């Protein structure tokens, strides 16, 4: 009896191998991971790939999903934006993955968007971004501007009493759009145009002498001044160093950053940064049982107790759990049905709250403001009352305040409330 079953299994295995590869694939659910593992973005995105692998590993140990094991399909788009689209097409058309977790920069997301819409794929995008977008095929688990930038500015205005603003950014789409929203918001709050200074520097800028001297000058007009920084990753280190060297402390002119997290600080001498602010929806230092468990799970998986966790990792944690719940609810991995199942689903986040998928494919997130401590972690100095729902279209930009995204009742990503028209996926 026993030998017979072994024989049958062997036959089945051989048959599976000989006749079709698809037969094996039937037993697993493929999960695509689309993160750069080489090139400039590798520094940030490799961690996210590992996060998803960890989540898949844990899910498989729990018995997989719908009785099947999850199988990761990892591709490397190499920080090359057109390659992102190619690799996305490969994942969706050749590997037939059920879901993709991926992208970091907005330009990579814009690059894969047409592919996901054409092939009806499902993408979980884990990074804070500039908003002004809502696709049927994307779930935005990172923060929209109203979940990060606007609360940070509110904090500085109300709690710190800031009257003068420097909006300092790297020259690309995320800082430019965010600053446009912030400028409109500040003007709405009665800040005079001469009290706002907006500047852009190139990617990887390392000579900040002139800019920091200009900030110092702008900030010495007798009114409390703050810098809202959308400076991209790497360029931050020389920026903060220069601030320190020119003796501008966080107590005089605080800098609030939207792209500086624990991971970025791990490669930095944090002494000159103490007191600088960052706005995120998650900090590693927030002490909750769920977060502690997540951190120790991460350390065990990556086999390095010194690795930090960060906000986009939490977004992937939430995104993965949401997808698992949606698949369980829909009882299939069919993309159309999973997308239909997603809005309204809830899953606990790592900081003691609940992440809920909204009809506009964004989620609810708490907002935290933290001050950098000498050990590279953040000391939370402010948190929002409850979770803030993500708003796809900013209420402060003249072009987008009438636009609404709703994939449940309206079935449209950019519905104009005034003209009552849905103008397709792309908003111009």
């Amino acid at each position, binding site marked *: 009896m026993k030998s017979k079953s072994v024989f049958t299994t062997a036959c089945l295995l051989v048959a599976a191998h000989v006749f079709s590869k698809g037969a094996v694939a039937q037993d697993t659910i493929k999960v695509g991971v689309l993160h750069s593992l*080489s090139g*400039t973005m*590798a*520094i940030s995105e*490799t961690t996210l790939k590992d996060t998803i692998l960890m989540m898949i590993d844990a899910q498989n140990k729990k018995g997989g999903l719908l009785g099947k094991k999850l199988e990761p399909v990892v591709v490397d788009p190499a920080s090359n934006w057109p390659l992102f689209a190619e690799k996305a097409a490969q994942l969706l058309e050749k590997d037939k993955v059920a879901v993709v977790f991926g992208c970091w920069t907005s330009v990579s997301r814009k690059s894969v968007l047409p592919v996901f819409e054409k092939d009806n794929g499902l993408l979980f995008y884990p990074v804070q971004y500039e908003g002004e977008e809502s696709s049927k095929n994307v779930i935005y688990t990172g923060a929209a501007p109203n979940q990060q930038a606007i609360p940070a500015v509110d904090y500085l205005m109300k709690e*710190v009493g800031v009257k003068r603003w420097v909006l300092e950014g790297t*020259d690309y789409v995320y800082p430019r759009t965010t600053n446009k929203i912030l400028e409109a918001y500040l003007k709405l709050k009665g800040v005079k145009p001469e009290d706002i200074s907006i*500047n*852009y*520097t*190139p990617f*990887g*800028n*390392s*000579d900040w*002498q*002139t*800019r920091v*001297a*200009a900030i110092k*000058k702008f900030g*010495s*007009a*007798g009114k409390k001044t703050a810098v809202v920084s959308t400076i991209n990753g*790497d360029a931050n*280190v*020389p920026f903060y*160093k*220069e601030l*320190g*060297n*020119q*003796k501008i402390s*966080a*107590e005089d002119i*605080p800098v609030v950053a939207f792209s500086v997290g624990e*991971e970025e600080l*791990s*490669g*930095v*001498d944090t002494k*000159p940064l103490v*007191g600088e*602010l960052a706005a995120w929806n998650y900090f590693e230092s927030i002490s909750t049982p769920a977060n502690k468990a997540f951190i120790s799970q991460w350390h065990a998986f990556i086999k390095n107790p010194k690795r930090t966790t960060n906000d986009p990792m939490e977004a992937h944690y939430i995104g993965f759990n949401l997808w698992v719940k949606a698949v369980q609810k829909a009882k299939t991995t069919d993309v159309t049905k999973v997308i239909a199942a997603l809005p309204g689903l809830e899953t606990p986040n790592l900081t003691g709250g609940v992440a809920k998928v909204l009809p506009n494919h964004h989620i609810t997130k708490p907002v935290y403001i933290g*001050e950098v*401590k*000498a*050990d590279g972690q953040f*000391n939370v*100095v402010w948190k929002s009352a409850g979770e803030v729902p993500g708003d796809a279209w900013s209420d402060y930009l003249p072009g987008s305040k009438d636009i609404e995204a709703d994939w449940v009742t309206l079935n449209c990503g950019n519905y104009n409330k005034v003209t009552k028209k849905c103008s397709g996926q792309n908003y111009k």
Partner: protein
Amino acid sequence: MKRLLRGAQWLLPLLALWAVLPATAQSPNDATFLSTLGELREASYSDKENIVERLSQSGHPSGRAVLTALLEDRLYFRNSDQKVFIVKTAGEDPLSLIDPLTLKSAGSTAADQLTQIGTNNGLRRVLRMALAHFGLASPDASVRLDAVREMMQSLDEPTVALLRHQMAVEKDSSVKKEIATGLALAALDGTDTKARLQAIATLKDSVSQDVRNRLALLLDKSPDGGFVETNEQVRRAAATAVASIDRSRAFYSGIETLFFGLSLGSVLVLIAMGLAITFGVMGVINMAHGELMMLGAYTTYLVQVAMPGHIGISILAAIPAAFIIAGLTGVLMERTIIRFLYGRPLETLLATFGVSLILQQSVRSIFSALNRSVVTPDWMSGSLRLNDALAITYNRLYIVIFTLIVFAVVMLVLRRTRIGLDIRAVSQNRAMAKAMGIRTEWVDAMTFGLGSGIAGVAGVALSQLTNVGPNLGQAYIIDSFLVVVFGGVGNLWGSLIGGMSMGIFNKLLEPYAGAVLAKIFVLVALILFIQIRPRGLFPPAGRASEDK
């Protein structure tokens, strides 16, 4: 007031409790101090500011130590009995405790048994201000100077009284001058016209932005169109003073821009110098030049890791180490790849580009894609304050000096040593040099090694300015080629002057055009220049240039 009452309510039983404990003989002052300290545990940040205020005014002998500890994140309370302690050095485990009252050692406790009393920016500001009052009594003149500067941020009546008192006993002239400025600023708020005019006269020679802002306030108009300041005499004096301060500030800001330009220029010269040798003298287009700088920067990191207790010296030790490592890599490249490709520039370009990718990926495999943290030694951070309007950052200053030293050394090697003579001979006429018995192959390897070694040394400097990561080289390779082409291929002086002028031109434009446009303008200007003078600023003269 209500809170104070509530505080007093539970203060009394506590006092009674201490009275029956003769072992810890505490004065009532101690008890108040301790209970105020205890409030820090639960208070919100704004309440903490009040508590700090009270602690600093308590006059308790441990006040200063406690406030300093709070500022430096060294104030904790023990979870088991809620007692507040100062911690000797943060970041240890177990933490050694100091009693906040007696300032004597109080044993040690595991770090997870203690909770830190946190601070935020606002609170740290208040703390610094409170500590400034203590700093005024310091025997160190520079501490007193910092204290006075801190106190000038908020000139309330007790502060002014304190400054006036200090003025009488102060001996150091620079501190005295600063106090005089502070007192003059305070005098502006007075009613006596003569005293105010005198204050303006004192302030006229200042170059501080704060003073200028304060004086400019006197010229403001109120919303109804009239002047805020009614005394016309005072207004006129203030207007002259503001104009005079603005003039001197504009002068110093010009000097500052010039220095910014020189420092950017010296970075350009430093990164281009190695290339000026490999590309300029040997004619090899080395696309891996940036990666050799990256190797130098990683060497700095490794040297720092190897000598953790001596960050200050590690940077100096890294210079020869980086030279050797990058130099050896260069020699290896030359011996294994480049020597087979002499005279075929396109293939050299592709091969060295391949080498650059290999170097990048191997660094990524060994050290991970994450940036490495290179610590800036204390002697390189901060700035040299020349006056209120002009301060020069140390790291930039040292890099300007370092560039000039490296340049002088390279010049000496090329002009005054045997190997330098060989290098020049081979670059001028290879066949003739060979006929004279020079081992040209060996000289080629040494030249390439020298150029690569200098790239490594540049990497040490870059590790202080930018991120040490696998992509470090890519950010600088274009700039270094630009400098060499602009300066004139094969001419080190050309690279020096070319790099410096590019730096200054860039920095002069930046305040008007912004960083992005300034870079574009420099590039366009360079293209136009090359159209007019294809061989750069200082074209190589003589026969050598003709057969290239």
